[in-house]
C-alpha cells in the first residue's frame, strides 16, 4: 500500500472512528513467512489491520485476524467483543497450526482485559505472549527477542491521538447538529458546524493543560471536572465561550441579547454533548459513565509469586516486580485506570477489586464479567 492510500484510509476512518469497520478474518501473510516465523494476532477493525500491516512492512510474519466485531482491540476486549472464543477460533479454524512449527502467538497488550492467557493455553495449547500497546513498536519488540520496554507497555495521549479523538467526535456530532439546524435554524448551519468542530478541537487539544489536575485520588477520584453532576469543567469552558461571544458582538458592533442568548444556548448544548464522556474518550482515564471507575485494585501479598503478568499487561505501568524476591508492588497505583487486565491475567488470583463500600470483587467474578459481558457495565460482588 502506498503512502497516499494509507493517508486517505486514515482520514476517512478517523471521521468514522465511532463506527465498527470489520475486515475479513483469517491469515494475512506478511513478506515470505516460514515455519519459524512469528504469529501475531489482532482484532478485525479495518484501521487496526491497516496500521499493523504498515508496521510489519518488510518483515516475514503471519498476521492472524480474529473476530472483534470490527471494533478496535481495547474497546472490543473491554466490551466483551474480543474475547477468548474469538482468539481460540482464530487459532483453531484459520489453519495456522499447519503453517508454523511453534505454538507461540503474540497478542496486542490491550487485549489482556478480555482475553485470558490460561484459557487460551488450556484449550488450544498455544502460548500467549503480550506484545506492545502500539503497532509501531512491533518491529523493535521482535528484534529485542520479544521483550518490551516500559514505554512499549504504556498508553499515552499525544497530540496526534487527541486530534484523532477530536475529529472522531466532531464529525458525527456536527452531522447531527447540521441536520437539526437545517430543520429549525437554517441560516446558522455552517456556524453551528464550525462551533462543534472548534469546541471538539479545543477540548481535546487543550487536554494537557487541564488533564494534570485530574489524578485519580480519593473516593471521587478527582473527576470533579469531568463529573457531569458537578460540571466545573463545562462551566469554565462555557464561561470562556460566553465572554468570547460578548467581545465579538461588541467588536462587530451588533450587540443584542437575542444573539448572546441563542449562541450561548447552542454552545452550552455543544459543550455538554461533547463532554458527556470526555474521560472515557481518553486512554488515560476510565469512562466517567461507569461506576467501575470507583473500584480499586488490591494486591494480596500472600498469594503473589511474582509471575509479572501484571507488569506485562498494565497499560499505566502501575506495577514493579522484583525478580529476585518474586514479589510485585504497585508504586504507581494512583495511575490505575481500572481496566482489570492485571486481575484477569494473574495466575495466582493475587489481585482483586474492592468497591467504595469495601466489598471484595473476586477475580473469578471479574473474569466472568470482563471476558464475556454484553451490555453489562458494573460488576457487583455477588455476580
Amino acid at each position, binding site marked *: 500500500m502506498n503512502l497516499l492510500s494509507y493517508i486517505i484510509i486514515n482520514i476517512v476512518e478517523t471521521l468514522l472512528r465511532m463506527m*465498527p469497520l470489520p475486515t475479513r478474518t483469517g491469515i494475512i501473510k506478511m513478506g515470505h513467512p516460514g515455519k519459524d516465523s512469528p504469529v501475531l494476532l489482532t482484532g478485525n477493525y479495518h484501521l487496526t489491520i491497516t496500521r499493523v500491516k504498515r508496521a510489519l512492512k518488510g518483515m516475514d510474519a503471519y498476521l492472524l485476524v480474529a473476530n472483534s466485531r470490527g471494533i478496535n482491540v481495547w474497546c472490543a476486549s473491554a466490551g466483551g467483543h474480543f474475547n477468548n*472464543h474469538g482468539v481460540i*477460533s482464530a*487459532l*483453531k*479454524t484459520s*489453519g495456522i497450526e499447519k503453517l508454523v512449527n511453534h505454538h507461540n502467538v503474540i497478542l496486542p497488550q490491550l487485549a489482556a482485559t478480555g482475553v485470558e492467557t490460561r484459557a487460551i493455553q488450556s484449550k488450544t495449547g498455544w502460548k500467549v505472549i503480550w506484545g506492545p500497546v502500539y503497532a509501531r513498536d512491533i518491529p523493535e519488540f521482535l528484534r529485542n527477542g520479544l521483550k518490551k520496554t516500559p514505554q512499549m507497555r504504556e498508553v499515552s495521549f499525544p497530540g496526534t491521538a487527541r486530534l484523532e479523538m477530536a475529529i472522531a467526535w466532531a464529525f458525527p456530532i456536527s452531522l447531527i447538529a447540521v441536520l437539526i439546524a437545517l430543520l429549525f435554524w437554517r441560516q446558522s448551519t455552517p456556524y453551528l458546524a464550525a462551533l462543534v468542530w472548534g469546541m471538539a478541537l479545543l477540548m481535546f487539544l487543550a487536554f494537557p493543560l487541564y488533564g494534570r489536575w485530574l489524578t485519580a485520588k480519593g473516593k471521587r477520584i478527582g473527576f470533579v471536572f469531568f463529573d457531569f453532576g458537578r460540571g466545573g469543567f463545562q462551566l469554565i469552558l462555557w464561561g470562556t465561550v460566553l465572554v468570547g461571544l460578548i467581545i465579538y458582538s461588541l467588536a462587530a458592533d451588533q450587540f443584542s441579547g437575542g444573539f448572546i442568548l441563542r449562541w450561548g444556548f447552542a454552545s452550552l448544548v455543544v459543550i455538554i454533548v461533547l463532554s458527556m464522556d470526555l474521560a472515557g474518550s481518553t486512554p488515560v482515564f476510565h469512562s466517567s459513565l461507569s461506576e467501575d471507575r470507583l473500584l480499586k485494585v488490591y494486591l494480596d501479598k500472600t498469594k503473589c509469586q511474582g509471575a509479572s503478568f501484571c507488569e506485562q499487561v498494565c497499560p499505566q505501568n502501575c506495577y514493579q516486580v522484583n525478580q529476585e524476591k518474586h514479589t510485585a508492588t504497585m508504586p504507581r497505583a494512583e495511575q490505575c485506570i481500572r481496566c482489570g487486565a492485571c486481575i484477569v491475567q494473574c495466575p495466582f488470583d493475587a489481585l482483586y477489586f474492592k468497591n467504595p463500600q469495601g466489598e471484595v470483587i473476586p477475580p473469578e467474578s471479574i473474569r466472568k464479567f470482563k471476558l*464475556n459481558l454484553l*451490555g*453489562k457495565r458494573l460488576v457487583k460482588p455477588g455476580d
Partner: protein
Amino acid sequence: MSTYVLMKILESTASRYDRGIRLLTLGRLDRAYECLASPIKKGQKVLDIGCGTAAAKGATIKGIDVNPEMLEVARRRAEAASFGPEIEFVEMGVAELGSEPPESYDVVMSGLCFSELTTDELAYTLKEINRILKPGGLLLAADEVRPGNPLKWIIHYLIRIPLVVITYIITQTTTQAVKDLPQKVRAAGLVIKSLNPNKLEDFIELVAQKPERK
C-alpha cells in the same frame, strides 16, 4: 426477515430475549424451532450449537453457546419446561468442537448461529459436524442467508440496512447473512435432504444428512 438483527438487539439483554423474540417474530421462530426439531426421536443424542433457547424433548441434549448470559436463559427455560438431567449447557465456541468424540451425535441442530460465524469458522464447523455425526445422522439448521435472486437481494438489503443501523446503535455489533449455505454444507460432505426457504429467500430451514457407511 432480518430476525437475526433483532435477535442481536435482544441478546444484549439476554434475560428479555425469550419474550422479546416471540413478540417480534409473532411466534415464527418458535414454529421454526419446533419444525426444525421435529425429526428428533426419543433417546437420540443431540448437539445444539448456539443453543440460545433449547427445543427438543425426550432426547439427550448438549447445548453450547459462547454467551454465558444466553446459556443462563436457556437453562432457566429448560427448567421451566421440566427438562431433567438429559439436557446440559456448556459455554463453548464452535472452534472447540474438536474435543467432541467422532460419530457421537444423532442430530446436530443450529438456529441463527451460522450467520454469526466467520467464513473460516463456518467451514470448520461444518467439517466438524460431519465428523461428530453418526453415519445417517442429521444436521438441522435454520438461518439467515443471502438471497440468490438479485431483486430479492435488493429488497433484503433495503429491509436490512435500517435494522443494522438500529442494532449497531444499541449493541455496537453487526451481523452478516450466510452466502451459499447449501453449497458449503455439501462441500463439507453432507447430503441435503430438504431446503425450505421463505418467500424472500433470505431465511432457510435446511435438513442435511451424513451419508451411511458403504
